[in-house]
């Protein structure tokens, strides 16, 4: 569908506004789904230049909370991707430089691993007005705090953007620890019920390899042969959600090819953003006659690990974990893939584990891919809100299905003075499946 048809579906009812985190923060039409659709249409109709709308599109988290809220079935996810493509080429030089740098880094686990622990220089990060400093006055409850004074339609000054990004990067420091190497293939314990391939991802594999290790163990214990293909690439989620379609397509083709050789029933990921992106490969490569059919088959076979485990049904015995945990719905799991029941089902299957719901749980934590690096101020306000909501539950642990969320929420909790930890759903399951020492 072309952009006009896609935007025509919007009847301007405004039901998306309350679901949108940036509308909640700023109350401006142009930073709401309805407004962004209007802006993208303005560009498509020649009423506005791409440069005029870039700021508002960049402020969109891509959390997709607006999609289920829309009664007319507007495909905002497709519209915003079109929009990001439209503005990508019109960015000013400094902006492009920062982005190029980020996207030369992120999709590549080895490069990510190399910069781990590297702190940005003080002169760059120190004087920037950023995240933690820009918190608005008053408590951050939706009904009582006014939003920040935010210049709309203007791209922040170049120096402070880079500086802000650097400082945010410093705050979002990944956990220490060496990378856990994964074998090429792990056999199922007991009866083999499926052969699955595991996407190790970029951020996940660079910073959270213990999570992948846990994923492998759980899958094996639940009767899966797990294949971890060598030379797999980033799935392309980060560039895709940022409008860098060419890079995303390249990475998608490589991913498809890698797993095609692996001979697996399903491609499993423990990263919400990756699952969401890979399930869209059919649309991403729809215009490529050579790859379209393969992409469609591939997309059909993608599963989030929680999804797959629920499909298979539990076989391994669980031991009790007498904890209270708050489950955080990653946007690309909940909104992007409609997966909300499965993680909860798995957690419910752990004896003595109590799962509490986070108030306002449908609102993004602010991670949103590399959003928290490019838009540190709204990201940190959203992070702070999420931290407050989590702390209000009294939970002892936070459980989430996405490394970006984990980093974001962890940083926000620390800012709030809490030492609460964030773990992946699969790590909890791994702990429950581990046999008790004899």
């Amino acid at each position, binding site marked *: 569908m072309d952009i*006009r048809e896609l*935007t*025509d*579906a919007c*009847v*301007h*009812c*405004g*039901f998306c*506004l*309350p679901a949108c985190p940036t509308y909640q923060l*700023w*109350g*401006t*039409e*142009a930073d709401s789904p*309805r*407004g962004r659709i*209007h*802006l993208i*249409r*303005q560009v*498509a*109709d020649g*009423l*506005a*230049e791409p440069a*005029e*709308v870039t700021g*508002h599109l960049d402020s969109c988290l891509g959390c997709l909370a607006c999609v289920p809220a*829309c*009664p*007319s*079935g507007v495909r905002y996810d497709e519209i915003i991707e079109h929009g990001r493509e439209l503005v990508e080429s019109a960015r000013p030089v400094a902006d492009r430089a920062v982005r190029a740098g980020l996207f030369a880094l992120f999709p590549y686990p080895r490069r990510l691993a190399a910069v781990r622990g590297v702190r940005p220089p003080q002169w760059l990060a120190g004087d920037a007005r950023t995240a933690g400093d820009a918190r608005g006055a008053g408590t951050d409850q*939706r*009904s*009582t*705090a*006014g*939003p*920040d*004074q*935010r*210049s*709309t*339609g*203007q791209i922040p000054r170049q120096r402070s953007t880079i500086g802000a990004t650097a400082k945010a990067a410093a705050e979002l420091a990944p956990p220490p620890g060496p990378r856990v190497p994964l074998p090429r293939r792990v056999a199922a314990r007991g009866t083999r019920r499926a052969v699955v391939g595991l996407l190790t991802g970029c951020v996940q594999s660079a910073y959270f390899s213990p999570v992948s290790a846990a994923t492998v163990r759980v899958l094996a214990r639940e009767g899966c042969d797990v294949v971890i293909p060598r030379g797999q690439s980033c799935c392309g989620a980060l560039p895709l959600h940022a409008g860098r379609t060419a890079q995303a397509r390249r990475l998608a083709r490589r991913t498809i090819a890698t797993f095609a050789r692996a001979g697996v029933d399903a491609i499993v990921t423990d990263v919400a953003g990756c699952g969401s992106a890979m399930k869209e490969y059919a649309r991403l490569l729809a215009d490529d006659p050579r790859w379209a059919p393969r992409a469609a088959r591939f997309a059909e076979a993608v599963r989030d690990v929680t999804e797959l485990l629920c499909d298979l049904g539990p076989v391994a015995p669980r031991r009790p974990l007498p904890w209270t945990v708050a489950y955080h719905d990653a946007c690309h799991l909940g909104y992007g893939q409609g997966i909300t029941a499965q993680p909860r089902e798995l957690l419910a299957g752990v004896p003595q584990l109590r799962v509490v719901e986070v108030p306002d749980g449908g609102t993004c934590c602010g991670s949103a891919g590399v959003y928290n690096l490019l838009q540190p101020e709204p990201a940190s306000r959203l992070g702070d809100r999420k931290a407050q909501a989590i702390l209000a539950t009294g939970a002892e642990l936070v459980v989430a299905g996405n490394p970006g969320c984990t980093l974001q929420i962890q940083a926000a909790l620390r800012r709030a003075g809490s030492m609460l930890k964030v773990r992946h759903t699969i790590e909890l399951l791994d702990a429950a499946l581990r046999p008790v020492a004899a």
Partner: protein
Amino acid sequence: MTLDVLARRLRRDLGDGAVITDPATRRTYECDGLTAYRSMPGLVVLPEDAEGVQATVRACRDARVPFVARGSGTGLSAGALPEADGVLIVTARMRRILDVDLPNRRAVVEPGVINLEVSRAVGPAGWYYAPDPSSQQICSIGGNVAENSGGAHCVKYGFTVHHVTGLEVCTADGELVRLGAGRAAQAPGYDLTGVFIGSEGTLGIATKIWVRLSRSPQAVCTILAAFASVEQAGAAVSAIVAAGLRPAAAEIMDALAIGAAEAAVSCGYPPGAGAVLIVELDGPEVEVEAETAAVTALCGEAFEIRTATDPQRRAAIWRGRKSAFAAVGRISRDYIVQDGVIPRTALAEVLREIERLASAAGIRVANVFHAGDGNLHPLVLYDGTEPGALGRAEQVSGAILDLCVSRGGSITGEHGVGVDKAAKLPLMFGPDDLATMRLLRDAFDPDGRANPGKVFPTPRRCAERGGGVPAPGRAAVPTARTGDGDGESA
């Protein structure tokens, strides 16, 4: 003072982030929920509190420019259509609940507070705010005040004017004035709160609102009854009213609307229904039980009846009705939604007449309506790309309003007159009536700066033909409208 100077002054007074001047962003405010009317505001200002509104209005006064207030921009009569040479004052950032006083059953809220947020805030304590427009998850209390909004439950509980006991308003000359009794029930003097509510922003801007809170009912029962025809459904409602029952809501959808809702949200209403009736009963449990039995008996002609008392199943019944407006977008490219009212007893006859008008024009009309109080929402469906279709749709739409008035009803039950129906206001009120209403307006706003061009038909507007910038992608707005023309200055 030009708008540029005005913008500089307001940036200085309210901060950079409160003033929007760049064209693309301003253009996103060109319409509210009624997209057929678009007009780019000269300037957009987002104050954060009453003093900010006051500063903005004073600046407008000094610059002698008009202003229009906008809440969430979901209105359906173009009441928030901006003035091209004026300021659009957006209250979306004024969303604090300033006070909750449960012993006195009041809350004080800023105009940008979303309707449902009030109920959410007091819900855990067992209270709620009764007026429930279908857009309540996004429409603002300030907007509700401007339009005197109702909602499905207004047949029993009344409208905004019955649930607001006090206001602080910013008048057009920039004074903040307290009106009404606030936490008490009655204050001495003229009921200025009563006339301000429903005045569609033409008397000033409400900057604080005292709302009355209601106790959440002990029991709620929602009944869905499927009938072979709308006549039968309407007859059931008449029987319910004649029996002395007071339902909290009574909604009817016809077959076309049901089909759209099914396509949109798979509401699962009984297949083959010519009409469905949703009746809601609430109150003390013992009364609701008695009423449920009575209503079920009075729906004898229904071929299927479903009754629900738990929240999930009740929500499932309501889902189809709540999605109705947006859902018709799936069975038709474009549509006009009307808001006429007729005496409830004339329902069957008027619906037959609407059917006749529609088929004569070759246009489909889906009907959704508040059967309890005769408020119709005919959804006039058309395809904007088809030549002449918009004209026929508007003709049918206008004829429906004429029909409503001829039966002793009204041109608008809840959406307001705005721009959309200003030309029809003389159907209901003669020149003396309108002149008398203007006396009130002159008392509040002698210079005519508050939302001018709304509600009252003006000769200038009626003479303007050839509407402005076409809605992107849609056929150009034809001559029959009395909307503001191309207002963009960029």
